[in-house]
């Protein structure tokens, strides 16, 4: 068998482990490409088949690059780069003839691992990364120690990883983080199911179909009641008769917010390719990474293209105070014509009511008491969507209710706006966590009332109280909710599995908060705790020195271990015997690897009759001390030491014929 026959399959194994997390993201042909070429490479190494020549390899390389360009277009984003890497890795086993090729391939496997980390930043991937590094390092050891067993290589790989851990942690905590990015994060073609800046009928009912996590929140204290969990995202002012539009509004002086019942929580927001951050009604101030707008929404400067973490304090009971004139006008604006029946109804309410609060109540009463149905599949609406919904179909999802309700309010002269976000979330039984999924998407209305400010009013709560109290699945008629909501998911069917699922979620969130959320801010506050202020240059230098000192300490610890005399103190008997053997080796009578002490004594005794007696004496004493029963007595040991010290074999000239 060729010397590399055992190495090529091992390398292919490491590459497979590295590329496995990419399989779902990569185009199918690349998966097939890798599988085919690696299968051929492994078999070729096993049976000594011919490897393809240089011409064929060049052809395959060009074909692979062409394929990547066709699949991903000509922009080199993260996905395209991952694809290219996979294509090159697929070709690698065909040209692994030299040690150099194999080393480069092992490094390539490490690089594939890191591209997977950029795609999936979660606990499962962290654990998988450990596995992948273990495998690749074992293969790297195998390349440099062809004689060993794979098992021993895996063990050593694990030991080295464990020993590298202290240094890893120090570097991880102290390596300076930056805010923002170096050259920007390329946009990937991920389909997003989040909010857009237009709220049209059917938009939210589409989001309900998705099981994807939008964000998770960890509360410092108790999780608020479910009906209080309104996660605010976007505020819509502009209505064109059918859709609600978001538009960037010039900031004005902030309203005078007053409130009580603060709740502090941290959010880990999944990338949604837009600028909004979600916050519990009503965020009191902006986190470092975003700005708070007068409509109490949070926006980042850039789009959320990777998972971000922020901490917030929200006031659960609040009063936003007076409204700015400009906002009041925008919150009353309606399109020119259309929806005459709704306008007429609103006008009548306005005439009959004592004040705005009674108008609000009248509208809620109408939705509650008339035959309105909460459904994911409403019938199509005609030209006048509000009239059609309120008087004809009366079937719709939360965006229909919010949109119509806001229209009625404006027509009746009550300032109103539509808020898009999420409502509720899944409570985790093992901690103060809430997981909010796309299926929790929701839209509601805020009306401005004199003396109370903007007041949250949710018409959906009037038609389907269960939506707010228990969630989407409880509010929809059986069979209408998506499978994963109506208990069709395996996870929800078995109680034990449910518990395990919750536990896994809890661990994931904990990991996410402590590990993935560790960024510039967290680093700064950690260093502040040990007295280093990163904002001044002195602090930065201090951090650097501290890091270097720590690393030097770790290195010193290793160095001391390394040059300690091997096991001399632990086994004095063995040490004395070794000294005896060294004396004999010096006169050309070395002990061979297969010789036990007695066999060794006999062998040299036969060659050197003049030394035979003393050698037999020492060997017998050694065997007695080492293999005999009982403790080694210090005086016996000393006698043994003396005996070996007196033993001075002379170098007798070798027989002539040697």
């Amino acid at each position: 068998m060729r010397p590399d026959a055992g190495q090529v399959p091992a390398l292919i194994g490491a590459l497979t482990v590295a590329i496995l997390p990419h399989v779902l993201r990569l185009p199918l042909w690349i998966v097939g490409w890798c599988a085919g070429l690696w299968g051929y490479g492994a078999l070729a190494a096993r049976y000594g088949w011919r490897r393809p020549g240089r011409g064929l390899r060049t052809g395959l390389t060009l074909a692979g690059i062409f394929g990547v360009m066709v699949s991903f277009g000509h922009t080199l984003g993260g996905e395209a780069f991952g694809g290219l890497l996979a294509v090159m890795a697929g070709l690698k086993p065909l040209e692994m003839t030299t040690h150099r090729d194999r080393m480069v391939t092992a490094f390539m496997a490490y690089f594939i691992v890191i591209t997977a980390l950029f795609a999936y930043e979660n606990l499962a991937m962290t654990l998988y990364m450990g596995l992948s590094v273990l495998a690749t390092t074992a293969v790297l050891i195998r390349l440099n120690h062809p004689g060993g067993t794979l098992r021993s290589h895996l063990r050593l790989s694990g030991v080295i990883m464990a020993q590298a851990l202290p240094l890893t942690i120090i570097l991880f905590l102290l390596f300076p983080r930056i805010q923002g990015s170096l050259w920007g994060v390329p946009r990937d073609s991920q389909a997003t199911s989040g909010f857009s800046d237009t709220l049209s009928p059917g938009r939210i009912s589409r989001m309900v179909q998705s099981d994807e996590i939008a964000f998770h929140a960890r509360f410092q204290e108790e999780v608020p009641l479910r009906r209080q969990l309104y996660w605010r995202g976007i505020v819509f002012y502009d209505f064109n008769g059918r859709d609600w539009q978001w538009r960037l509004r010039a900031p004005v002086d902030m309203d005078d917010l007053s409130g009580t019942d603060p709740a502090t929580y941290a959010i880990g927001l999944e990338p949604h390719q837009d600028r909004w951050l979600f916050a519990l009604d009503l965020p009191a101030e902006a986190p470092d990474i975003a700005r708070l707008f007068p409509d109490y929404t949070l926006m980042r400067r850039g789009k959320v293209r990777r998972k971000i973490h922020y901490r917030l304090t929200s006031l659960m009971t609040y009063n936003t105070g007076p409204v700015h004139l400009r906002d009041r006008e925008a919150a009353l604006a309606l399109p020119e014509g259309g929806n005459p029946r709704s306008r007429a109804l609103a006008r009548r309410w306005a005439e009959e009511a004592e004040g705005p609060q009674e108008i609000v109540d009248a509208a809620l009463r109408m939705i509650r008491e008339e035959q309105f149905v909460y459904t994911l599949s409403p019938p199509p609406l005609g030209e006048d969507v509000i009239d059609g919904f309120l008087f004809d179909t009366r079937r719709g999802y939360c965006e229909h209710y919010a949109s119509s309700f806001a229209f009625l309010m404006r027509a009746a002269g009550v300032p109103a706006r539509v808020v898009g976000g999420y409502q509720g979330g899944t409570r985790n039984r093992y901690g103060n966590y809430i997981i909010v999924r796309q299926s929790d998407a929701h839209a509601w209305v805020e009306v401005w009332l004199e003396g109370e400010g903007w007041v949250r009013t949710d018409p959906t709560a009037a038609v389907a109280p269960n939506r707010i109290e228990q969630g989407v699945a409880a509010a929809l008629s059986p069979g209408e909710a998506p499978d994963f909501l109506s208990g069709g998911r395996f996870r929800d069917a078995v109680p034990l599995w449910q518990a395990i699922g919750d536990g896994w979620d809890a661990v994931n969130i904990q990991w996410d908060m402590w590990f993935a959320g560790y960024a510039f801010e967290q680093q700064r506050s950690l260093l502040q705790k040990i007295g280093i202020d990163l904002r001044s240059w002195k602090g930065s230098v201090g951090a650097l020195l501290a890091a270097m000192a720590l690393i030097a300490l770790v290195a010193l610890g290793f160095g001391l271990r390394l040059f300690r005399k091997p096991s001399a103190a632990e086994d004095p008997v063995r040490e004395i015997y070794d000294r005896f053997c060294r004396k004999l080796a010096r006169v050309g009578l070395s002990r061979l690897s297969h010789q036990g002490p007695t066999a060794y004594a006999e062998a040299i005794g036969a060659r050197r009759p003049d030394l035979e007696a003393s050698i037999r004496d020492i060997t017998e004493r050694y065997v007695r001390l080492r293999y005999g029963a009982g403790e080694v007595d210090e005086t016996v040991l000393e006698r043994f030491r003396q005996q070996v010290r007196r033993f001075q074999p002379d170098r007798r000239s070798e027989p002539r014929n040697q």
Partner: protein
Amino acid sequence: MKILRRKLGKMPPPLSFPATLNRRNIYVLPTRYGLLFVTVLAAMLLGALNYNNNLGFLLTFLLGGMAFVSILYTVRNLSGLTVGSVRSRPVFAGETASFKFVLQTTAPDRPAVRFAFPESPEIQQDLPAGMDALIILKEIARTRGVFSPGPLTISTRYPLGIFRSWARLNLPTECLVYPKPLPGPLALSDGPSASGESGSRPMGPGAEDFQGLRPYAPGDPLQHISWKTYSQGQGLFTKRFTAQRGAAVRLEWDRLGTKDPEERLSRLCHMVLDAHRRHILYGLRLPGVEVLPDWGEAHKHECLRALARFGNAPGRQ
């Protein structure tokens, strides 16, 4: 870098057996794969910084930490190794000299340790802990004299191949190189009792010259073995014969036609081997050196040694 190479390339201080590798003679530097690895890590670090990806940082620092730890493994793989002794048999010039080193290994196991002389290919061997290992290095001995292949380099890239640790030991490693035999006419002393230019007459074992028995030594001609005593169970003996003084030939330096001393030695070497093969009683006379006539394996080697060491025998080739 150049200074470093000069420092590393100069002859290390002479040592004697047994020589133990320790922190004073072990060096460690990254290999070119180590430099490539650092480049890969730098790219990873940039990526992690740009994406602000903590998992990326974790992987980068883990790999960096592992590279650091691997330095210690690489050094430990050599530290404590002891080169106990070396043995080599004399060879003729142009033949391959073998050097057999005995290595003593303390715990732990030492996988993938490489051994090389400056001009010989590396050999790689796993050395299990607590056992003596035999390492055989071969190198062609080109010229007559005392051949020293240069310092022994013991190195390893274990475990990750990104660092190499090594030690260069300037040990008394020598091999005696006999001259390369060169056929030619015999050059004998012209003493009165010499048997003339045709002195290559085989010396038949004349029974009348039988002198006694001596214990058998390997290399004694079979026809001289005393089978009678052997069949009587007294052991193996060789019959000794007293050749007449006049029957001994003396191989003479001065009587060779050529002037070149190395060629003369080569010619004499061939004569020694020839005389030995023909069981002639022969002696050797070089300027300042004389080996009295005798025969047998030991005598042959004495003569060859005299040829190898003759004059200011060149050390290294």
